[in-house]
């Protein structure tokens, strides 16, 4: 997957503000990685989940978040100006906001203590529900202020996260 263009961070909405799509992209990638890890724990942990259907359902959420990240990255790439002569676009965003986001985007092992199959599944589900809730809230929060061309995409992403949360809950 291509990295985020630096111009997405610097250009933003044309007012020197970070483009909200950058943070949403990083978050979507981070969510996918985190949920992948949770699914892996469910499937291959020392005490595998007694509910393989849950692992499959959570894997679908990870796939969706990965696809969200790809779609957002495409939007950012489309609006990025060509790089200056003699420069190479950064593969990762920079700047205070991007650094902060990148730091939070580092995948970390989920705090799942697979003490018993049922509690592992419950903890996994609770973690993914929290991830989806946050993703929905963050996407929904920026929809009112985005350009038309991005509002529909981000609105759909918010709706997807809300729908997954509803059916998993």
């Amino acid at each position: 997957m291509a990295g985020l263009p630096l111009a997405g961070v610097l250009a933003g909405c044309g007012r020197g503000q970070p483009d909200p799509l950058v943070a949403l992209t990083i978050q979507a990638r981070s969510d996918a990685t985190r949920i992948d890890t949770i699914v892996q724990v469910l499937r291959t942990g020392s005490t595998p989940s007694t509910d393989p259907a849950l692992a499959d359902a959570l894997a679908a959420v990870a796939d969706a978040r990965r696809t969200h990240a790809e779609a957002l990255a495409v939007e950012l790439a489309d609006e990025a100006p060509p790089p200056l002569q003699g420069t190479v676009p950064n593969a990762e965003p920079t700047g205070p906001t991007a650094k902060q986001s990148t730091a939070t985007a580092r995948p970390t092992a989920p705090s799942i203590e697979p003490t018993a199959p049922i509690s592992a599944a419950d903890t996994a589900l609770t973690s993914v529900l929290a991830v989806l809730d946050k993703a929905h809230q963050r996407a929904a929060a920026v929809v009112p202020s985005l350009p038309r061309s991005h509002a529909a995409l981000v609105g759909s992403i918010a709706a997807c996260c809300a729908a997954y949360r509803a059916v998993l809950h």
Partner: protein
Amino acid sequence: MKPSPPPGPSPENRELATASDTAAAVQAALGTEHAAVWCYGLLVAFLPPALDRLARQDATAHRARRDFISRTLADAGVPPIAAEPGYRTPNTVVDQASAIHLAISAEADAAAAWRSVLERCDDPALRRVALEGLTDAAVRGAQWAARSETAPVVPTFPGRT
């Protein structure tokens, strides 16, 4: 004491009154809400009691949104479109499975219409209304899909056609 002047039109009303593409998109979304109310009225007869309650809740939600949008359009001076006497369904409803399929289709249509409003408006308040319509339709559609063999249960980009 002089009466306070009547409030001016809200920003979303101004956009509806002046932007033809915005008004057309909202009218289209209103049309899908009319259709959804009609569809739920049809399909509820084919559902068992356990699902009947869910269908009635969803129909109530669509009626509320239909009425709100109708009022918003009227307040902006745009005559809201009326419901059709009947609607052509994508499938014949004969049992629980086909009834659920119709509910999923009605919600998908509503989601697509509200997503289209997001592409055709700038006012933040109207954006929130459209996002709520899109999200609610996506949630309801997913809840119906989860009760059937329909896949995917949740589209990755609800409303995108």
